[in-house]
């Protein structure tokens, strides 16, 4: 809660202390006279002291009113509402791609740990973590749009308009977000699996004559996946940052593009609203996942107690 409050104060200060007068921007260089400037500044409440403006702004935000963008003549709330499904779809798709690849990879590399395949996978995932998202995005375009011509390089079609075309447009941005996550998730799961595989109940299952497949998938995977679930949840916040980059590269009309365009056009109100929206989502997601984690996993809490004792 205190974090959320701090987030709102910092967001407000960032956007309010911007050098350059938004009133001048609205009037345009030719329309600036002393009277019109005063009038517009009054209309925007820019003539009131900072704390008063913060209180007013916060009151509006709490009611879902993120302000009105003069540059676009649209309310920021309606822009966010239009952009959110797009960003949400890309984030969900990215998480699905990442987990579908990372879970088998994590299980197999833990099972065959120290094998050639494990070492190769470890090297590749470590390398993958060093490749920035925007480089991945550009290379995906280079390979799949320019060379192979399988996928469109950019643009967006709504899911409701044409599901297949929507998937074709969404797959590259989602993959660009997913690739580093594969590295994070598979390394995490591999580590937890190794710990689980050392435990007595696994040795018991093995001595009972169960197949490796049943031990891995039926017995070991579930208790090894708690931290994976948590981290996957926490990564939603990180992915919201990543969408800023990906949506710009692939020209996808989501929250990230809203923010970047707002900055290009010096559209103060939009930047303020979107930044707060992303920060709030991030803080709330982290909070919920933290709560869920302690509810989900009493086993690891006990484990920690044992480890520290």
């Amino acid at each position: 809660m205190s974090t959320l409050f701090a987030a709102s104060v910092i967001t407000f200060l960032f956007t309010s202390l911007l050098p350059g007068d938004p009133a001048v921007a609205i009037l345009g260089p030719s329309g600036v006279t002393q009277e019109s400037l005063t009038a517009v500044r009054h209309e925007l409440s820019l003539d009131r002291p900072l704390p008063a403006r913060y209180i007013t702004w916060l009151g509006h935000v709490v009611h879902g009113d993120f302000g009105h963008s003069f540059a676009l003549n649209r309310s920021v709330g309606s822009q966010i509402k239009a952009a959110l499904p797009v960003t949400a779809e890309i984030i969900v798709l990215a998480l699905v791609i990442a987990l579908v690849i990372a879970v088998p990879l994590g299980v197999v590399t833990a099972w065959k740990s120290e094998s050639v395949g494990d070492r190769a996978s470890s090297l590749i995932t470590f390398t993958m973590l060093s490749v920035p998202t925007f480089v991945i995005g550009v290379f995906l375009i280079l390979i799949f749009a320019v060379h192979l011509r399988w996928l469109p390089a950019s643009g967006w079609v709504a899911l409701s308009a044409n599901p297949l075309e929507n998937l074709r447009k969404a797959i590259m941005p989602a993959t660009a977000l997913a690739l580093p996550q594969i590295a994070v998730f598979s390394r995490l799961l591999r580590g937890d699996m190794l710990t689980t595989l050392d435990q007595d109940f696994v040795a018991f299952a093995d001595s009972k004559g169960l197949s490796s497949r049943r031990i891995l998938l039926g017995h070991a995977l579930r208790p090894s996946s708690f931290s994976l679930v948590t981290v996957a949840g926490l990564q939603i916040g990180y992915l919201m940052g990543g969408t800023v980059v990906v949506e710009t590269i692939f020209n996808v009309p989501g929250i990230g593009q809203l923010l970047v365009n707002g900055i290009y056009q010096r559209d103060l109100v939009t930047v303020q609203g979107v930044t707060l929206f992303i920060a709030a989502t991030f803080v709330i997601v982290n909070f919920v996942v933290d709560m869920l984690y302690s509810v989900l996993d009493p086993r690891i809490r006990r484990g920690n107690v044992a480890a520290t004792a």
Partner: protein
Amino acid sequence: MSLRQLDSDPLAPVVETGAPLPPVIEVATGGGGFRRRSARRENVGLGICLAWIGLVVVCAIGARWFPGVKGPNAIDPFNRLKGPTASHLFGTDELGRDIFARVLYGARVSAVVAVVSLAVGLCVGGAIGLVAGYFRGWIEGVIVWATDVLLSFPALVMLIALVAYTGRSLMHISLALGFLAVPVYTRLSRAHALNIAGEEFVLAARAGGARRLRVLRREVLPNVLPSLLAYGLIAMSLTIVVEGTLSFLGLSVSAPTPSWGGLIADGQHYLKEAPMMVILPSLVLCLTVLALNIAGETLRRRYESGGG
């Protein structure tokens, strides 16, 4: 939970998310093949990485005196969008500018940003963390709370917002990145200081009559610094990635100053005609980030296993 993740993933997006913390506590996990490399191979790897980093630094400083390289903005109008040739090692861009020269000069931006943010993060964050970890008390509570708040922001988004307002000069961007790194160093430095403060030689120094500030300076600081510096290498790689992202979005140093992210963004428009415009700068960027990561990770592990 996250301790394990941190241990195996020092590169988890610390700057971007603030969620995964830096490696604070040594957890003896069975790590990857990377972890189990023999010391000799590790030294060779470390040597190669440091050599590459050194090369990049030398290029950044000496770009002007590099043989055959004119300047980042010198135009060769008869050779536009050409692939690599003997006279233009990395090819040319749409205006006929030499991409190799632009990569060399672009290294300056990355180097300055990395070094300044390291200095800011290390000095400010390191000092605050030492105070919190050694003196404890209410001041530690305040520092930990502030760190948690700052780390709970989506840093990339805040940075984009921040830089849009502070202006896009190299110093502003470096300082903004350094500012964002402060809480990470604070947390790391506090954790190490807590560990060291409990060691017998610290108690012995106190028992010997040394004042607390002297103990902090003579006993605690020298033992915390190596780990912080090793993490600093990893943080530098993150800084370079984030600056690259900003340049790529056109929110970092303005044209015509070359920067790696900006070069890749320019090349994006000519993927069909001149793919090398994107491929070669990307390769240099990724190799530099990878080298910093491997070097930092190797040193971090060495100090943590050797120091305790």
